[in-house]
């Protein structure tokens, strides 16, 4: 019977002698051993791997799981009757149809309590960009109507105090969100758009003169 794969030691030795003569004599050595009885036991070890891999789940595991759990519960109830749900009825009750109507009630409440959430997590460059755009609009507006409304202001000549006073007087005219975008405050303000008093206070307290100048 032919043993595969075929070998040809003489051809190998001749080739090796030409390539690396110093290695020829070591090629035929066999310094390895195996534990006694290893090969006799190997097939059984492989069968254990094939049949008994602990990470495998039996094919019908999930189908049988509910029955097995219930069997354990019944066994526990027999051993300790006080655990039985049947002998200790639930003492709390809910109105009829409570759970059937709950989603609708929640939806209705949510609809009546809608609030606007304004995020204030803006970076400084967002504030600068918004201020530049706003300033361009304001300046453009006044420059475009120089003859009909004599309201052109010499912005450069205004002092910080004058700017602050101007802002206090006109803050209602601005959208709250525009002002909020000029800040880098790391909070979220839940507010109604009509709360201009609070907004005015906040602007005067939180914004510095430079920001106001930028804004205008």
């Amino acid at each position, binding site marked *: *019977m032919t*043993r*595969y*794969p*075929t*070998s*040809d*030691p003489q*051809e*190998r*030795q001749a080739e*090796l002698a030409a*390539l*690396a003569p*110093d*290695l020829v004599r*070591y*090629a035929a*050595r*066999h*310094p*390895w*051993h*195996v*534990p006694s009885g*290893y*090969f006799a036991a*190997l*097939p059984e*070890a*492989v*069968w254990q*791997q*094939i049949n008994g891999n602990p990470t495998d789940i039996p094919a019908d595991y999930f189908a049988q799981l509910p029955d097995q759990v219930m069997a354990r519960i019944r066994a526990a109830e027999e051993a300790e009757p006080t655990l039985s749900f049947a002998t200790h009825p639930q003492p709390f009750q809910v109105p009829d149809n409570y759970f059937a109507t709950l989603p609708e009630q929640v939806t209705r409440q949510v609809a009546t309590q809608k609030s606007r959430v304004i995020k204030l997590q803006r970076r400084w460059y967002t504030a600068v960009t918004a201020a530049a755009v706003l300033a361009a609009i304001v300046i453009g507006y006044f420059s475009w109507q120089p003859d009909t409304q004599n309201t052109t202001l010499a912005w450069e000549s205004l002092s910080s105090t004058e700017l602050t006073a101007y802002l206090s007087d006109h803050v209602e005219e601005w959208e709250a969100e525009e002002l909020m975008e000029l800040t880098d405050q790391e909070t979220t303000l839940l507010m109604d758009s009509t709360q201009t008093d609070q907004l005015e206070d906040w602007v005067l307290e939180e914004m510095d003169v430079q920001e106001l100048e930028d804004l205008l």
Partner: protein
Amino acid sequence: MQDLTPSDEQLLERFRQPDTRESAFTQLMRKYQERLYWHVRKMVTFHEDADDVLQNTFVKVWKALDNFRGEAQLYTWLYRIATNEALAHIKQRQRKGADQSLDEEESTVSERLKADDYFNGDEVDRLLQEAIDALPDKQRAVFTMRYYDAMKYEDMAAILETSVGGLKANYHHAVKKVESYVKDRLNQAL
């Protein structure tokens, strides 16, 4: 004396029958386990590693044997799976030792061999194992198949699915590297 070992064709035929499937596979393991073991052992060096690789090889063979259609000889197919498993094991071992320097890795192989009850080679044998351990994966496979088992290039080409010319080139490179490694280390020791 008559050889009672069943042929590969007989084993495959019995494997396809449900009532003889498991006994046929046990016979297949008994027929090939020693040849595959030594093939793997020379690649991975240590008995524990060879045992892991060989068991994984047979588990994969069990799962895939239904799909074996006989395009190659059974032994070629078995050797191919064993070789791939051994190379995968070596890669895994290398990843585990990736944070070690080359010297630390070599000393680990050398130290393990000194402490290995199933290795009784001398200093040159240990240096040879270190040198083989440092070879690229494919060269390591080619070197051990040719150097220790004197396997024919045609058989190696079928197992590794590559050309005879490529194998010869790989073997020649590997021999030169191993020779250089062993000589350098022996000269340093003098």
